[in-house]
């Protein structure tokens, strides 16, 4: 039987993949399987749509390693006739997916934002050319590997279901790579991807102290504060978890308000899915206005305090 296998070391992403696999299942007359790390509750995976769960019990798989996991998935695929592998495109997953593909001589598309069937062809969409365009590509090889962006798909309703459990022991060798330490990141509290309201700042800020008024404004409308890459990486004024864009977070808020951002594609890719975008910029010709619903031409430092005031005194 045709098998679609999903895996992500991030449980939430795994559930998103299960719901998407469930949509392909009928048309392909396939079984949906999930591979899970030891100590996972298999019922969660059945609940979100898995018909079969592979529990990775091999000692070499106790911790995530792209090489060991690639070897395991190669074997699982060959032994069980898995044709499609959907991997969560976290950084670890993105390291894993092409390794599996190489071992299976499979075509691979990473960072997919959409998956569909065109006839019998499996088609995935992803951003290319630095975020300028979306490419739609069909995979021609027998086995296919797609890594899917977190939050590209919605998690379905959890049902009470059960299925087959397969315990995987492959006696794999240990990885050549030794993980010596995992240091927690500081400031890892932001949750921009879930935020319903987002405030973003860019190079229109002159100094770190300028952040204060935007932090205050974000607080006053219950928004998360995000920023462009230069603010997080070059200037380090905000932690990198707050970077929004091609190399940062992709956000889908109802309202996104951006201040002092010119509108380079590397950033706007991260806010493109917002319901409403508001831009404030002193340059009337800034490209950001082209992708905004509402724009104010003016000085962000004059406007931000007034917006704070306005947010704190709702009109009756």
């Amino acid at each position: 039987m045709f098998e679609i296998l999903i895996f992500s070391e991030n449980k939430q992403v795994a559930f998103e993949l299960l719901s998407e696999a469930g949509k392909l299942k009928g048309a392909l007359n396939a079984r949906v399987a999930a591979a899970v790390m030891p100590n996972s509750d298999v019922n969660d995976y059945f609940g979100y749509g898995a018909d079969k769960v592979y529990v990775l019990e091999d000692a070499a798989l106790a911790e995530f390693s792209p090489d060991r996991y690639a070897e395991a998935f190669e074997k699982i695929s060959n032994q069980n006739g898995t044709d499609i592998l959907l991997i969560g495109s976290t950084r670890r997953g993105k390291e894993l997916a092409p390794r599996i593909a190489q071992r299976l001589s499979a075509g691979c598309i990473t960072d997919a934002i959409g998956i569909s069937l065109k006839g019998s062809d499996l088609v995935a969409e992803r951003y290319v050319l630095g975020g300028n365009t979306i490419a739609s590509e069909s995979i021609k090889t027998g086995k296919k590997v797609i890594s899917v962006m977190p939050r590209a798909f919605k998690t379905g309703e959890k049902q009470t279901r059960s299925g087959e459990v397969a315990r995987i022991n492959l006696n794999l060798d240990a990885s050549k790579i030794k993980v010596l330490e995992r240091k927690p990141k500081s400031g890892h509290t932001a949750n921009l991807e879930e935020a319903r309201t987002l405030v973003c700042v860019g190079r229109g800020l002159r100094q770190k102290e300028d952040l204060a008024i935007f932090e205050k404004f974000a607080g006053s409308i219950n928004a998360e504060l995000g920023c462009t890459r230069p603010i997080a990486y070059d200037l380090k004024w905000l932690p990198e978890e707050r970077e929004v864009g091609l190399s940062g977070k992709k956000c889908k808020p109802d309202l996104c308000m951006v201040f002092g951002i010119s509108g380079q594609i590397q950033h706007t890719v991260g806010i493109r899915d917002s319901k409403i975008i508001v831009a404030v910029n002193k340059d009337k010709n800034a490209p950001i206005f082209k992708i905004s619903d509402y724009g104010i031409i003016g000085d962000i430092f004059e406007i931000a305090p007034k917006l704070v005031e306005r947010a704190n005194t709702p009109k009756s």
Partner: protein
Amino acid sequence: MDIIVCLKQIVDLKQIRIKKETGEPVLEGLPLVFGDMDINALEEAVKIKEKSGGKVIALAMGSAKLKDTIKAALARGADEAVILIDPLFDAAGSQGKAAILAKAIKKIGKYDLILMGEGSTDNYSGQLGARLSQILGLPALSYTVQIEMAANSVKVTRNMEDCMEVAEAPLPAIIGVTSEINKPRIPSLMQILKASKKNLTEWKAADIGLSAAELGEKETVMLSNLAPPEQRKQVLFEGKTDDNIEKLIDSLMKEGVWGR
């Protein structure tokens, strides 16, 4: 330490225009450059060489114009360069490209480290290092923000979503770097002038022992490649700030996204 740096020739992304009627990108005639993260990888290789000796070999595949593009890598401190140019290579997908580079790397023969960007700056698929690691049987570590060399091993710090991971691998190893790893220096006029005197080797498919049959077909077929449609209202408020703010808040309340 002998270090191979893989670079990808891409169009200058800042100059891409989108055709309004069709949403197609206009790529013809755009300057060809190396991606930003490729330059970070090259800079890191040069820094390692400055500390522990050895040489830096730039390796790139691309169009005939690569003979020009590669000079930027030589000016930035690569000691020599190998360029792979053959119409046959145009048919290669990710798997084919990895096979081509693996053959070239085997022909170069002696190396301790292979450096590249964590993904190419244009398409960012991140497949090359991962596929190379499986073909060459080498450990590969991506998302690297710091590299420490030892005699027979390399220690890297990787920027993962939930932590900074410190990992160690035996040499030779493949390392993908992020743009945080360094700030590339601007080459001096002297370096630019010297670049054209450095050793540049050009290989075709036959030189690396690769046949069309071995290369196979592309694993994926592009059905379309278009800019996503932007359907924004583009309402602009100009004039007195206080009026603008009131108009904006009114609009946002009507949209149901303010004051909830």
